[in-house]
């Protein structure tokens, strides 16, 4: 067990270590907190601006638009993070990196598909992540559809001062 803690989850190739379900869950939790805090700040700013003009009163359509904007904002966070750095802030903290079939960070379209599948998995009570527990490359449904994998890169995480 101690050895497993030191060198986790070597699956197939000796050099590639795939990110497991617990590590990915922690990274997703960190990213969720970041997105929620950003949305709260944005909401507070818009509320303060609206208060200058007599307050914001949203109807059903307005609420739908605001909700959609929040979902798009959250999705953009993941898409931008994966296409630019290959990792979100939470994945950076946990030493994870997302790569596509070529071993590069996902391209825009791939990142959009992966984000959409991630959202779908979250909505369906994370069922789409169950394959991570037994897939030989620890892939979930979003990885399988977007043809990406999540690697564990601890030495890069060690260089990171903080998340």
């Amino acid at each position, binding site marked *: *067990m101690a050895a*497993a*803690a030191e060198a*986790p*989850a*070597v*699956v*197939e*190739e*000796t050099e590639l270590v795939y*990110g*497991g*379900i*617990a*590590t990915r*869950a*922690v990274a997703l939790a960190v990213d969720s907190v970041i997105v929620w805090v950003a949305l709260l700040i944005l909401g507070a700013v818009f509320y303060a601006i609206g208060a200058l003009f007599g307050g914001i009163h949203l109807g059903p359509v307005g609420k739908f638009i605001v909700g959609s904007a929040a979902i798009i904002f959250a999705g953009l966070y993941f898409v931008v993070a994966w296409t630019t750095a290959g990792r979100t802030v939470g994945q950076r*903290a*946990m*030493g994870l990196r997302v790569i596509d079939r070529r071993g590069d960070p996902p391209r825009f379209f791939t990142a959009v598909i992966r984000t959409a599948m991630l959202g779908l998995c979250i909505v369906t009570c994370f069922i789409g992540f169950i394959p991570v*527990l*037994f897939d*030989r490359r*620890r892939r979930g449904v979003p990885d399988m559809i977007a043809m990406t994998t999540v690697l*564990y890169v*601890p030495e890069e*995480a*060690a260089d*990171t*001062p*903080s*998340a």
Partner: protein
Amino acid sequence: MATSPDPVDVALGAAAIGLRVGVAAGLAVGDAGRSATRIWIALPGVNAVATRTASRGRDARVQAGETAEEVVRRVAASGAIERVVGQVLDGLDMERIVDDVLAHPAVQRFVDALLKSPAFERLLYDVLDSEFLLQVTNRVLESPEMQAAIERIASSPELRRAIADQSSGMAREFVGGVRRTSATLDDVAEQKVRGWLRRPKPQPS
């Protein structure tokens, strides 16, 4: 059996006796001269001469005092005193002198005895428990100088850098701990599920 005295001691004793006799004789001569002068100036006709002589003596004393003051003033104005004092201080190795004094066995013995002394210990406790010390401490802490010093220390880049380094080190340690724990959980969860599904973990190629 009597031993013969040391010639050096004899010579020194003779010199000391001679010195004492000389001093006593000088004092006696001085007293005699003063008494003779008193008798002399009391004689008829001599008093006027003595008065004029005394007047000149007073003038000479005043003039001597003024001359002495002028000399001191000129010496002080010339900066000679500062130069001499500066040269003396430059010539002294104060650090070595202080080291020598502190390293002297007598000082060491004194300090040891002081530290072992119950009276000194009681004195220290009395001072520490005293209201006076509390008031002095409060006054020092509330003084503007202390506040300025605290503000200066608190805003110093070195202290901020040290705090930032410590904070980032703690954050890095925390993240490292979470990462190790989650990696262990990865393996445990995977092994459990693979055990249920009877799918062994692939061996590294």
